[in-house]
């Protein structure tokens, strides 16, 4: 079984006259434990495809099977349960402004229920240590640099040991010196846990880290290279 199987996927934005197709007949299967990078020009549908696979958008036509579960027509509770098995890293890091790094990461554990507070605290501290923020645990996002915020976001996505990680241009807001190490960290942490990672990026600097590069243009897959 593949963690992600996309079959005959179409997607439209807008209503009526303004309705515009963004994804055309996409078929894609992703291997377990791989790092797949989606590339393509702006408006090519990379992010749309990513959010469709990541349960962040309703599937309109075709099929997306995630970890064996069909997302097309799935109910709210199925979607919520699926989302809890994923880790999402956003372009704008999307940390909660009023929560410290520790609290932000903790929200990713508390979504699974109350659990054991001491064990959760230990997991959060360990994870923030892994991303190199051991000394910034109780900082609010406002007091962290862009790279540090993105590392908190990575810790938040990874702490609950998700089956799949989706990353939407995680390096877009970062400079070169910060971008490469962050993606490398993401790849290493993913590999050590056997996590499947799908990333959208504009950033040519990080392509060499990919196992597979899928290129989209105008909502269609135009190139699919396996590097490893």
């Amino acid at each position, binding site marked *: 079984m593949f963690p992600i199987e996309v079959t005959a996927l179409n997607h439209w934005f807008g209503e009526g006259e303004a309705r515009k197709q963004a994804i055309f007949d996409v078929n894609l299967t992703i291997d377990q434990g791989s790092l797949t990078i989606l590339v393509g020009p702006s408006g090519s549908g990379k992010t749309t495809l990513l959010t469709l696979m990541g349960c962040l958008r309703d599937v309109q036509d075709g099929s997306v099977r995630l970890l064996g579960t069909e997302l097309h027509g799935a109910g709210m509770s199925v979607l919520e349960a699926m*989302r809890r098995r994923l880790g999402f890293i956003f372009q704008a890091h999307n940390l909660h402004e009023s929560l410290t790094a520790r609290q932000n990461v903790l929200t990713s554990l508390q979504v699974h229920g109350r659990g054991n507070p001491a064990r959760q605290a230990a997991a959060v501290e360990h994870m923030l240590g892994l991303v190199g923020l051991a000394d910034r645990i109780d900082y609010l996002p406002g007091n962290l640099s862009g790279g540090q915020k993105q590392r908190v976001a990575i810790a938040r996505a990874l702490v609950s040991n998700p089956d799949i990680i989706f990353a939407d241009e995680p390096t877009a807001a970062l400079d070169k010196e910060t971008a490469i190490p962050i993606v490398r960290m993401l790849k290493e942490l993913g590999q050590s846990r056997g996590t499947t990672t799908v990333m959208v990026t504009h950033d040519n600097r990080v392509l060499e880290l990919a196992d597979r590069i899928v290129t989209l243009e105008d909502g269609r897959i135009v190139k699919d290279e396996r590097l490893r």
Partner: protein
Amino acid sequence: MTHLLTLLLRRLPIGWLQLTHNRGRMAAALAGVAFANVLVLVQLGILGALNGTIAVAYAPFQGDIFISASDANTLTDGSPLARRVLYQALSDPQVAAAAPLYLGNVEWTRQDGSIAEMTVYGLPVEAQRFAGPLIRDALPTLSVPDTALIDRGTRGADAEALAQVSPDTPLQFEANGRTVTATGNFALGGSFNADGSLAVSDQTFLRLFPNRISGTPSHILVDVAPGADPAEVVARLTERLASEPVQVRSLATAKADDLTYQTTQRPTGVIFGFSVAMAVVIGLVIVYQVLSTDVADHLAEYATFKAMGYPHRFFLSIVLEESFILGALGFLPGLLVALGLYQGVAALTGLPIAMTVTRGVMVFIGTIIACAASGSLAARRLRTADPAELF
């Protein structure tokens, strides 16, 4: 606080952290909630004062049954009754006693030239059982013609000076062209209809109101015999007096009818009721604005939580948490300001405007419910939208 809330909510107190993260915005939200509270509390206070003065007007007398003219909606607006009604009531075997009650308004011209409108209560001096505790003990002393007890709560009067009025230090004044001597005082206070009250004997009343034909009381007070059922006597008297233009009610019913009439039929009551409704609506709008702004400000963050798999009830619980915090913290300053305004209005008008525990608790609970409902309503967008559309 964060620790306490964590234990209480069994999750991160995100509502509290959100609110305290931006103190300026929280202060503005609290000011909004407090203002909504002040609005509603003050309007309810004024309506409560109206209800209070209506009830207080019944304090100088008591009895089981109250017979009034059929056109009497309040204490003071009915036609006089025929004295034979009194004797007809007394002929019922289960009526223990009955007495006439006279009511009228006079102008008290004070030494400084100012005029106070006084409600005059006239009772037979021997009808002590029908006098309220306020005047019961002093009632027999009013057998001296042209003597009265004066209301030391009279609006615009020097309460301390009036409290000194006694048989040894009487107060003489002019009313309806007669010289009246006040030989005692009681505390009733002004109302929407009059500035204060006087208590006199039925004889003195008829001298003050020469146009009131002797023996035409405003109302008749009836006590039933010990062990008799007042409701039964009311029914029997109603039947016996069917040919007279009167209505027979228990005193409590008469009071309740008066209250209903004055708050729903009289312009003052209707206006105050309307003001309360307006205040509640404006308060709701303010509270909705505060909560929906707050939800809108955090929509992107909530969308992130939704993307992580949090269910909708999680957002509702954050909204509820914020509602409790804003409702509770906003209520206190609102209450304090309202109490200050109560004092100001009471000092200015002499009306018995005061906070009651019931009113405070109701407004408090109402505020929290309004906050929670507004927040939930504002969070509805979150329920239907895909997370990807909200970042």
